[in-house]
């Protein structure tokens, strides 16, 4: 599923660059430079112990599951990799540490709250929007259920309530917008983390802090703050002691994904026929390229044409 979505995105990207990028000039797309300095969270994975209290806090805050606290001490969940779901806005995964088996690395995942969110750009009705404070929030009332955001997000974050037949919603981390709106309010996961490995603050200050930490302990930290530039920069930032690719972080360039998706989306309204042709072509290309395996991507492409 991930693979399909990602490959589909690659097709989109290729199509956009090759086919119609000349139709819309990059200046029309939003630029990262003029984005206000919102808040973010610095995740120091070297301090994380995999206690899953953040998962508990998030699930409790958003009424996602009602498992009691003790159940989160079950470490058997780490045996398989888990990913975000409609009822899990954040999950912690364990990655074995080849240098010290007794000290595996734990990584908490959730929406990264991109500075220039692809999900929001892909959304035709503005249900997903980046707020001044950095949170990328979702408005179920506006959402029409097209799930473009799920395709667009380079981190495979938004999940969909497939099980909910009547009022399905796109679900993802809200950055606890209602909590942080209050003076001194912290996201539920940040407040709960016993290790304080989640630091909430102004993104610019967090970046400075991250670089200070790296400079203060260059033997420990990788000289890379994940999220500083990935996909145009994200509000959630990560520090790690091992290369991020080993921890299954996506290797994403600094180019904001919206520049690709937005180009296509905007073109739909400008030159309706062109993208339709493109999409039709894409469908055909994918059917040929993927043969029997491309069923999911194929339906996605067809849905978008219709």
């Amino acid at each position: 599923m991930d693979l399909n979505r990602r490959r589909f995105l690659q097709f989109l990207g290729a199509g956009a660059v090759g086919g119609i990028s000349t139709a819309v000039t990059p200046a029309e797309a939003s630029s990262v430079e003029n984005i206000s300095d919102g808040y973010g969270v610095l995740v120091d994975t070297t301090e994380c112990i995999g206690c899953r209290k953040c998962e508990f806090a998030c699930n409790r805050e958003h009424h996602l599951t009602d498992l009691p606290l003790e159940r989160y001490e079950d470490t058997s969940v780490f045996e398989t990799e888990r990913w975000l779901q409609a009822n899990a806005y954040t999950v912690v995964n364990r990655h074995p540490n080849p240098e010290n088996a007794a000290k595996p690395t734990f990584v908490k995942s959730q929406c990264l709250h991109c500075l220039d969110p692809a999900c929001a750009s892909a959304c035709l009705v503005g249900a997903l929007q980046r707020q001044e404070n950095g949170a990328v929030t979702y408005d179920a009332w506006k959402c029409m259920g097209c799930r473009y955001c799920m395709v667009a997000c380079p981190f495979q974050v938004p999940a969909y309530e497939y099980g909910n037949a009547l009022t399905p919603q796109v679900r993802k981390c809200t950055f606890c917008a209602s909590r942080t709106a209050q003076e001194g309010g912290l996201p539920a996961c940040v407040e709960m983390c016993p290790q304080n490995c989640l630091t909430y603050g102004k993104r610019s200050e967090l970046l400075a802090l991250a670089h200070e930490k790296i400079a203060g302990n260059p033997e420990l930290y990788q000289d890379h703050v994940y999220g500083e530039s990935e996909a145009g920069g994200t509000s959630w930032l990560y520090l790690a002691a091992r290369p991020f690719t080993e921890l299954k972080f996506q290797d994403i360039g600094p180019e904001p994904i919206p520049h690709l998706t937005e180009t296509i989306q905007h073109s739909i309204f400008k030159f309706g026929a062109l993208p339709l042709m493109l999409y039709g072509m894409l469908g055909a290309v994918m059917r040929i390229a993927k043969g029997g395996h491309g069923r999911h991507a194929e339906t996605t492409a067809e849905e978008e044409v219709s």
Partner: protein
Amino acid sequence: MKYLIVIACVITASAFPSAAQEHPAAGAEVPACITCHVSENPTEQDAALKACPRPNAEAAPAHESSESPDFFILDKLSDIYVPVVFPHKLHASMTEMGIGCEQCHHNNPPGPILGCSACHETKPEQANLKQPALKGAYHRQCLGCHREWDHETDCVVCHAKREPGHPVALPADSTDIMGMLHPNIEEPDIKVYKAEDMEGTPFVSFHHREHVQLFGLKCTACHQRENCSSCHNSEQQALPREREDPHQDCVRCHTEQVNNDCTFCHAETERPGFNHEQRTGFVLSTFHEGVTCTQCHPQKGAFTGQKPECNACHAADWVPTKPIDHAVTGVALDETHAQLGCVDCHTGGIGTPAVCEACHDEKPDISKWSTNAAPVRVPAPETSAPVEEHKGTGAKRYD
């Protein structure tokens, strides 16, 4: 507000030249006042300086772990859980394997050793992005080691859930590391020591497993006031345990023997373990094999002799779960009688004589049932005075 504080700081700095020497020079990057001052309005009389570590603090003064406080009750943050009882001295002694107090009390300025809360704020959480708040500081200190030492990150390792009326109790022995925290170790079967100065009888056979499994001793009965460094080096390898006096563990139970009877332990050769049949005449095999000593000899420390009759231990209405071998009583039952329950004949309960007339009109002659083998039994002691099981001559002990 922030500017006001900064201005106030600068004014304070210039107004009090004595303090100004340490105070960041005007023009230099001035840290927030609360970095160094407890109060936002320090005065000349009361600079309200934090005893807190300042940047570039010298190394903490060296202290011996023996000077350290035994326990701390960490109750600043307890709401879900009861306060944590932190065995401080135990941990202090562990750091002797490493770099000493500084292992935890990082950046401690010269002078007294400061606790975590001297610098790490309780609230507001994340007021200072550069250092964790108190909750994070505590957890990082504990889990930084525990996650590697014992792989335990469960809350209940340190925290007991807060329940009504739950008292904060100090564990009986602060150094009971074997009993409290140590992961299970498989005890050695036997340890044979050689005491070179005991001519003729140098061997001491210590049946370790027997003491634990048969005599039911807890680890801490012998391993008292141990800390990590008594057995491990800093790479966690286990090393032979060192004792000041090799008798120190034995003497706690075998006081009299250690003082008066060297042959109780010291022998010419290695000695076999304890054998109940040889020592007491009561065969444990089949039915009583898995029974620990204290189940029949409940008196701790000094085992008293126990009568061999079933009712010495079993209640009068006890029903055997497996068919018993009645022959051990001196009377072998025939097939018919073996089918009956105990109380069918022993109408007064186990241990009372059989009443044949309960079924038979006349008392039959059961002498033919008598086994030639003497019943396996030891004469019951006349008095209830403790039989010192581990006392006596070598011949009696290990014949």
